[in-house]
């Protein structure tokens, strides 16, 4: 008989416990089919409350203008664009996990990809709010699209990084959504076929698009996933590269840096994985999915965090070196006076960023720490704070004291409506995430089944005898051909 799957015992299992295919279905569908818990309702209502606060804040901004946000001369980009870059960065982990790790054939991605992709989509939705509402006259937002108009037609400036951003973010959102939903189809079909209640049958029937699991469909589905992964891989890298161009192509000291694209991409992956950890450490506990999102998954992601955190650290040091090496006094002033100097008005934010992003993740060099849930959760929050301050440092400390001392701005603090807008996006994000975790399987069912016989604990244990065999024996017993 053909041995379809084999993986060395040295690798630890990715699915714990004794499972068969049906058990996998049961485990993952249970939270979707059960009534929501009290905890869910509490979390959901808090999120909706935050969302309403956000809507009120945005309404204030639309009525009275961006002055409501305490933006001033020379700080035209304050919390809002900081938040935009922060959310977009978070939105990078999902597609990285589902696309790049698919190409790298990393089996562990199957446990976390569905939730991470959902997180990506919600994060990009949140990110998109900031540049849109920051326009002030938001009813003219469609001006950013190249459409035939009565002003000439006057086309948009295709040479501008801000326009590249429009294309990058909207493409990223669309492609991530398609990737996520096409992967969801088979799992929605599973829920449809298990449904006992009428509305559930109808809802999942519509959502599953009539998926049957036919071999021909699977063949095309596999081809689709692979090509979408191939397309998304450069896309992920391009999106934050283009976001960094918003800064790097300007001539503002502190922004005008060629290192920005790789530095931003590494930072995006860093913060994205931190957010995945924040969500999954809680999700796996609340939905009792510890067998699928195992310590192994948590540890691997912590490794990614320490790697990308260190890359970001090197980027910070490179920036400082280049500021000194350039011998440009404005560049030096931006880095050594506006940032490094702890006595300067925003010096504290630079050191907070350094501490959270560069120093604290180094704790993950220790295996014990990588496998400690409390440390992981705490660190994921720290990293997110640090990455928020990174964007704050880049934006605010570069513009609040520039070329002319007479134009130096007063100390910028956000207004309640600017904070409310940020809180509102948390509301949007978590409202979406709570709904997702209630109505959709948070783990990719079909993909877990696909790796079960290779990476499942109970199957893996049986592979010991296979490893004892000589090459000839192995080939004789298990050699098989896929073809006809």
């Amino acid at each position: 008989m053909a041995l379809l799957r084999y993986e060395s015992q040295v690798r630890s299992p990715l699915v714990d416990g004794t499972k068969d295919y049906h058990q996998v279905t049961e485990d993952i569908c249970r939270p979707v089919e059960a009534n929501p818990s009290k905890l869910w309702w509490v979390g959901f209502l808090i999120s909706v409350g935050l969302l309403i606060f956000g809507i009120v804040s945005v309404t204030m901004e639309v009525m009275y203008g961006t002055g409501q946000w305490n933006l001033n001369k020379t700080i035209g980009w304050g919390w809002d664009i900081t938040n935009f870059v922060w959310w977009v960065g978070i939105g990078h982990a999902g597609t990285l996990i589902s696309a790049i790790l698919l190409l790298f054939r990393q089996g562990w991605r199957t446990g976390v990809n569905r939730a991470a992709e959902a997180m990506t989509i919600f994060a990009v939705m949140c990110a998109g709010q900031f540049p849109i509402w920051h326009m002030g006259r938001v009813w003219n937002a469609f001006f950013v699209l190249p459409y035939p108009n009565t002003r000439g037609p006057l086309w948009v400036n295709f040479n501008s990084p801000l326009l590249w951003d429009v294309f990058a973010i909207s493409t990223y959102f669309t492609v991530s959504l398609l990737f996520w939903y096409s992967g969801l189809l088979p799992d929605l079909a599973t829920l449809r076929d298990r449904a006992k209640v009428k509305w559930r049958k109808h809802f999942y029937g519509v959502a599953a698009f009539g998926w049957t699991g036919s071999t021909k469909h699977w063949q095309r589905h596999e081809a689709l996933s692979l090509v979408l992964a191939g397309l998304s891989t450069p896309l992920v890298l391009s999106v934050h590269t283009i976001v960094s161009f918003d800064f790097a192509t300007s001539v503002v000291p502190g922004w005008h840096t060629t290192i920005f694209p790789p530095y931003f991409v590494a930072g995006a992956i860093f913060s994205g994985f931190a957010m995945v950890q924040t969500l999954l450490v809680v999700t796996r506990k609340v939905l009792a999915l510890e067998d699928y999102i195992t310590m192994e998954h948590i540890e691997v992601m912590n490794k990614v965090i320490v790697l990308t955190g260190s890359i970001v650290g090197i980027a910070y040091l490179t920036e400082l070196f280049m500021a000194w090496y350039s011998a440009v006094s404005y560049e030096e002033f931006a880095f050594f006076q506006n940032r490094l100097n702890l006595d300067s008005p925003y010096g504290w934010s630079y050191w907070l960023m350094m501490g959270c992003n560069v120093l604290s993740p180094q704790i993950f060099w220790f295996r014990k720490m990588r496998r400690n849930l409390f440390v992981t959760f705490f660190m994921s929050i720290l990293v997110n704070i640090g990455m928020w301050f990174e964007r704050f440092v880049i934006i605010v400390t570069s513009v609040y004291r520039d070329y002319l001392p007479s134009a130096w701005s007063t100390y910028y603090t956000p207004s309640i409506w600017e904070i409310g807008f940020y809180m509102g996006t948390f509301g949007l994000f978590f409202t979406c995430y709570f709904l997702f975790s209630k109505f959709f399987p948070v783990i990719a069912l079909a993909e877990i089944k696909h790796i079960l016989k290779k990476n499942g604990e109970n199957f893996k244990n049986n592979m010991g005898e296979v490893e004892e065999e000589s090459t000839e024996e192995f080939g004789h017993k298990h050699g098989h051909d896929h073809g006809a």
Partner: protein
Amino acid sequence: MAVKKFVVGNFDDEAVLFPAVKKVRRAGYKIHDVFTPFPIHGLDHAMGLRDTSLHTAGFIYGITGTATAVGFITWALTVDWQINFGGKPFFSLPAWIPVTFELTVLFAAVGMVLTFCYLCQLAPFVKKDHFNPRSTDDTFVMALECTDKTSEAEAMSFLETVGAKEVKIEYKETEWWIGRYDKDVKLFHKEN
């Protein structure tokens, strides 16, 4: 609507299903389809399905996106309304790379997903029959199409001998979603 008769075998292990598919085809039966809860690599080849051309379609969509972006931007900024941006040339191709790249990806992804849905006939509100609802859970379902010459009893017992756990006969109305792949599936002996 014509009614077709199928002999349906349910398997509970893909390692049994694989050789069974080969034996069934070697015996000359016509496999209507095999429904599985997850993708099984190589099953399409074992069933004699041809490779999908979805990749090619994706490539064509991508090229279309590239051409659209370069063509449109060139026309808009060099022909239709020239704007002097800091003295740079009107035809400033390097600055257009980001938008061109994004449109390439966008066209390829959207086009491929739509093509995928069209080829598999998947859309909201579409209902299809896949013989056994557990085929999206843990059962591998092989459906053989019966012709006038097929003896059902023989087919059923044959399926049991190759490892099917449960075999039954089902009648289905042939609508557009049943048996779309007839011309795709070649008979086994013709290949070898």
